[in-house]
């Protein structure tokens, strides 16, 4: 179903094959209505000074468009009022751009904790005197015997910071409320005015565990805006890096989930596999996490001489070891007792929020950006897409197990048919060009990662927006934990493994 409420005459190109349209309020509302009616999915919602943008796609990503509404009065009609997945994005728009989402039911600040010394830092900008931050009011919970457990922002482990407010009755969680924004670094603000190389470094540090995916999405958006095509070998090596990243994260996280159920041997074993991937990545791409490996125009360096051998040996090692660990996971009753039936996310909610990645695929959402809308070289590679429906911790583990197998198969195919040639082309010289826009969607290990940017005539980034998959997954964690016991929260949380840094920006 096409996004038919926006006439062709309004559509300006937003490369590669997207469009963007400046709309009036009725069309903005009509687009929002399409989200509520489940005709379209929300890709992202973001702002700039005096302007708000919303990216939407039809349900199978055949068409993706951006609608933009000017806000001369500093206000726009809230989408979150009708479509809850937009609520936190709108709270962030209010914080960062000083625009008001009229009708938004939850008007509390989100990223702004009252400590920046400025309000609406990316909007017109008003400095605000450094006063004591206002206390944040959590949603009330009433009932006999209900009490609260505040956790964080600093957690007991090597973890990113965020606050969880549990309202519990006995052992049972009645409500979890998240408060995030602690690691807001102002990345989109730093990107404005940066050259593509500097901005790419920022993009690659938005969420370190997804550095390849972020670099890839940013590079694709720049290349789309400039209308340049990177060499074939670079396209394939990018996919290779992306699959290595997926492999490393899945191995590490499956082990960590087992550890949260106090089954340490599997964590130790999976951590060994993760380390093997990281060492191969360093040997082949010069960095354990492959940071700055993907750059606008291609990749930073070609494989070393023995690169293919190193990667073939890696795949062989994981293929040997991984099935034994999976068998142990599946056959350990005490472990399965913790993961089966725990932290259930209903398919209806997953669909409403457009949950991507393993969170969505464990709850019946068949979304994988590699397949739809798809990007090269995945159109020439075969891989299985696991989709489960039970939505519990066990389902998320199993989707990730199947994804490890899929990534191994993908890496083998890439190694077998890697084209020869250059791995990078220069970007066209910067001066005196027209202003151009580009966008990209990439499948990170967590799911769909969206980047939109506008390059100025001088080739520098005027505005760049990055939307982590976690934006649509964090709210679902609140729903999944409801009715579970407090002691199962780490397990549920790790099975989602949302990014704090990617979300906070």
């Amino acid at each position: 179903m096409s996004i038919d409420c926006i006439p062709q005459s309004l559509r300006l190109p937003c490369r590669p094959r997207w469009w963007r349209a400046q709309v009036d309020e009725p069309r903005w509302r009509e687009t929002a209505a399409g989200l509520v009616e489940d005709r379209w999915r929300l890709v992202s919602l973001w702002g700039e000074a005096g302007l708000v943008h919303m990216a939407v796609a039809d349900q199978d990503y055949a068409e993706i468009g951006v609608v933009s509404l000017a806000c001369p009065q500093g206000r726009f009609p809230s989408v979150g009022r009708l479509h809850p997945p937009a609520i936190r994005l709108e709270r962030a728009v209010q914080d960062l751009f000083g625009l008001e989402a009229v009708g938004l039911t939850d008007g509390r600040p989100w990223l702004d904790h009252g400590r920046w010394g400025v309000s609406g830092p990316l909007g017109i900008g008003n400095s605000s005197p450094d006063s004591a931050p206002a206390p944040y009011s959590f949603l009330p919970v009433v009932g006999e015997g209900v009490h609260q457990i505040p956790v964080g922002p600093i957690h007991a482990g090597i973890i990113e910071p965020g606050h969880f407010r549990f309202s519990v009755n006995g052992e049972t969680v009645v409500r979890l409320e998240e408060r995030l924004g602690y690691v807001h670094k102002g990345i989109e603000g730093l990107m404005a005015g940066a050259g593509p190389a500097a901005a790419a470094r920022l993009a690659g540090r938005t969420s370190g565990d997804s550095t390849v995916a972020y670099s890839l999405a940013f590079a694709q958006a720049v290349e789309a805006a400039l209308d340049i095509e990177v060499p074939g070998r670079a396209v394939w090596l990018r996919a290779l890096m992306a699959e290595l990243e997926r492999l490393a994260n899945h191995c590490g996280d499956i082990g960590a989930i087992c550890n949260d159920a106090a089954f340490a041997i599997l964590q130790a074993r999976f951590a060994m596999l993760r380390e093997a991937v990281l060492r191969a990545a360093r040997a082949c791409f010069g960095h354990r996490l492959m940071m700055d490996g993907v750059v606008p125009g291609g990749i930073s360096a070609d494989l070393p001489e023995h690169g293919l051998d190193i990667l073939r040996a890696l795949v062989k090692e994981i293929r040997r070891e991984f099935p034994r660990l999976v068998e142990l996971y599946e056959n350990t009753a005490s472990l399965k007792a913790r993961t089966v039936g725990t932290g259930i996310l209903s398919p209806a909610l997953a669909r409403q929020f457009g949950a991507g990645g393993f969170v969505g695929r464990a709850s019946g959402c068949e979304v994988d950006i590699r397949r739809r809308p798809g990007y090269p070289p995945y159109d020439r590679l075969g891989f299985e897409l696991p989709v489960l429906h039970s939505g519990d911790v066990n389902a998320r583990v199993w989707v990730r197990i199947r994804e490890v197998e899929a990534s191994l198969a993908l890496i083998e195919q890439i190694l077998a048919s890697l084209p020869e040639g250059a791995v990078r082309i220069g970007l066209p010289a910067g001066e005196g060009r027209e202003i151009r826009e580009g966008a990209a969607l990439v499948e990170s290990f967590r799911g769909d990662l969206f980047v939109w940017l506008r390059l100025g005539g001088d080739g520098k980034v005027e505005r760049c927006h990055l939307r982590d998959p976690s934006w649509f997954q964090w709210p679902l964690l609140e729903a999944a934990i409801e009715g579970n016991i407090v002691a199962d929260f780490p397990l549920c949380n790790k099975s989602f493994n949302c990014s704090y840094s990617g979300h906070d920006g």
Partner: protein
Amino acid sequence: MRKLLFEGLFQAPLTEPAPGAEAAAVLELAQRLERSARRRLGRSLAIRHVDVGSCNGCELEMHALGNAFYDLERFGLRFVASPRHADVLMVTGPLCKNMSEALERTWLATPEPKWVVAVGDCAADGGIFAPSYACLGGISTLVPVDLHVPGCPPDPLRLLSGLLGLIEENIK
């Protein structure tokens, strides 16, 4: 599971007999750390991690310290859940303003003697995030720093070297 456990018993340890300079460095580190840490702190050093804005790259490598290849705990070094149990705070990230109060309170909650290790380029001076409205820069703007471990992110071996350096410096 029994099979895996038995294999683990009879297999040569994975803990870095791998060839190359890296393995030699780990071994050397192990011996030096044993001498100096024991003199100062008995057998152990308790570490509390605080992320004040990291992209989570540093966290991934700190996690790797615990795997079978680096096996942090053989040096008597271990991560603890509370600053009240800690000797060392390992702090990552460009000190986001939204985390400044949490860092200060964690530092105050850590008993003396205590040391602060700034992990990664961001914690040193804010790195590429330093100019942001949301960041204060290096963590030394808020708490005294005893050691910087550079890198983006520093790899596990570099982290180990840093911890050793910290202990040796304090013994002099």
